[in-house]
């Protein structure tokens, strides 16, 4: 009895959410689950704003295929299992006509099984792990598309600059999670290719606050370069503790964290000389980037970060593909997306046959006098890197 009531209740919820009839003249509803709460809440919300701005601008210009566009977004609490259930709900209960990807690699890895099952194109703006896209032939995925550069190349810029300066040794530390570990392994791989020796590599558990032991080991290895594959609070803690332990590499760079504005607000002059890897910067000369910055800041009262820009651009890429295909049909949109070459406020978009991003470029920034300066690659640089990093006690 109760179970039947449950069925009815679930159905009723579905009907309530699907408040608008999905007729031909109704809006095109695009479903997504995002990490609005939980561990990834901060970045998930930035991404959500990117989606919202994209839809707003699109509707102001007349919508898509003559219809308005509307996002149906649920909170997955930063948990893969919840994400899976939500995509199932979006597709089978809410009957959304299209979906966009969630935030983070682990959640994408889990929900892509659902979107593939229902043959929905899932442009996934913030899934950076190669293994989600590059799969053995019998496990191939067809409808997922990547927007950002893969985790493995996050620290390429740091290593490349180090190699050009003739530095010899690098130490790598990373949070032991899907994305951070992929970035660390990628950095080690690139370092070896460019002739640097990886003298130390170790992971630490998520939520770790004390890095004394790991940094003591790095100090003993005395590397020229320290590369951290971090999320954010760990980036702050590692930097502070490096100073405390007088660990003075010639170059020190981070993945996520080093590039965020808060990094400088929190660390002040101690953030100087530190390199940060980022997918996007507001200073980059991409088409529409300036306008995106202005519109975003006006709409949400804060400046965008790369997660906002990726969400925004991912939505634009999908919309462009639908326009060119003239339909929401997954197979036709897929064909367009596989061939599409596009420049957005976020940079270049082009994928290979696995939907794997091959055109977008990472950039490396460095904090100089409280400003983020793009120092790599040369063709996008807005300034010269300051080298080497002075000892902590000589600033």
């Amino acid at each position, binding site marked *: 009895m109760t179970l039947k009531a449950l069925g009815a209740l679930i159905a009723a919820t579905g009907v309530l959410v699907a408040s608008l009839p999905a007729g031909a003249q109704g809006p095109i509803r695009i479903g997504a689950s995002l990490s609005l709460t939980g561990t990834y809440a*901060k970045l998930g919300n930035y991404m959500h704003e990117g989606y919202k701005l994209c839809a707003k601008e699109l509707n102001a210009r007349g919508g898509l295929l003559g219809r308005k566009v509307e996002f149906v977004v649920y909170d997955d609490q930063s948990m893969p299992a919840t994400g899976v259930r939500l995509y199932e709900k979006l597709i089978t209960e809410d009957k959304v006509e299209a979906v966009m990807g969630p935030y983070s690699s682990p959640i994408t890895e889990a929900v892509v099984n659902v979107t593939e099952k229902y043959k929905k194109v899932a442009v996934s703006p913030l899934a950076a792990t190669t293994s989600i896209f590059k799969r053995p032939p019998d496990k191939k995925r067809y409808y997922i598309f990547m927007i950002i550069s893969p985790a493995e190349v996050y620290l390429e810029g740091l290593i490349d600059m180090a190699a050009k300066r003739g530095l010899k040794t690098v130490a790598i530390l990373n949070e032991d999670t899907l994305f951070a570990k992929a970035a660390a392994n990628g950095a080690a791989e690139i370092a070896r290719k460019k002739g640097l020796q990886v003298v130390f590599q170790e*992971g630490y558990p998520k939520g770790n606050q004390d890095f004394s*032991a790991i940094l*003591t080991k790095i100090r003993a290895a005395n590397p020229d370069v320290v590369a951290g594959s971090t999320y954010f609070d760990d980036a702050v803690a590692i930097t502070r503790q490096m*100073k*405390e332990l007088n660990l003075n590499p010639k170059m020190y760079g981070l993945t996520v964290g080093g590039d965020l504005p*808060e990094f400088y607000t929190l660390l002040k002059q101690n953030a100087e000389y530190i390199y940060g890897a980022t997918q996007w910067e507001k200073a980059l000369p991409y088409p529409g980037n300036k306008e995106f910055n202005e519109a975003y800041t006006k709409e949400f009262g804060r400046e965008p970060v790369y997660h906002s820009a990726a969400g925004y651009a991912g939505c634009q890429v999908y919309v462009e593909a639908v326009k060119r295909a003239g339909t929401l049909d997954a197979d036709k949109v897929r064909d367009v997306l596989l061939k599409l070459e596009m420049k957005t406020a976020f940079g270049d978009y082009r994928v290979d046959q696995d939907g794997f991003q091959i055109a977008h470029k990472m950039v490396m920034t460095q904090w100089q006098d409280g400003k983020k300066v793009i120092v790599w690659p040369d063709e996008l640089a807005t300034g010269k890197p300051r080298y080497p990093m002075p000892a902590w006690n000589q600033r």
Partner: protein
Amino acid sequence: MNVVVTPTMVGQVVISGILAGALYAMVALGLALIFGVMRVINIAHGPLLMLGAYTTYFLYAGLGLNPYLSVPVSMAVLFVIGAVLQRTLVFRVVDAPELSSLLLTFGISIALVNLAQLAFTSDLRAVEYLTGSWGLGPFAFSKTRVLAFVFAAGVTTLAFLLLQRTRLGRAIRATSQSREVAMVCGVNVGRIHTITFGLASALAAAGGALIAVVVAVQPEMGQVWTFKSFLVIVLGGAGNYPGALLGGVLLGLVEQIASLFLTSQLSEVVAYVLLVVVLLVRPTGLLGGRQT
């Protein structure tokens, strides 16, 4: 990975371990007090520490108050919050089976974290007050951690003086040894419970205030401290107050040395395996505590 451990490195992590240990001891002493006096395992201890850290942050960011001067203020604020929690909710599970207190304090814990997210957002904050270290030979003494050590040692000493030398302290210890006898001797047990919970929250707040200068302040920073405090009081003997000191320093050393010789991940394993072994071999803790 290819790093040869030298005696200097061992010395360095021993220093880090002892410095961290004092902080662990102070925070865990709060948990030990609540457990000793009320038989309540307080899972909300970590989130209370988080509130202490926020108090310090806002006093620093808003009024420019020196974070070390804010330690007593954070303690006072959290004493009141703790006392209110005790009077409104926790008093009802005193002496209840452990299941009730575990669940209730877990509920309080997630509610506090959620409230903090609503009130303060999930943005990271930091009290960028003091960085770097003092050098002594080949060893580095982190300034913030040395100060945290000094304050933690001071606060813990005061707490012990309070427990040992004052009338109130005797009443608390009496209540923890035998509630009935304490009652017969004219101790207002309800009041002692409220004061104990307030005091324990204040100790957590002191920990929060001191690590606000060391790590980033955010709503979820506290949980890991609940677990660390569990480890400390089990190692030292639940309900055994001096045991918390030993447990704290021991945990600090074990974590650091295991991270040095193995990896940070295995240091967690080592700490918990130690917990289980101690529980099995000496369920009353290394210094001996009281059986329930």
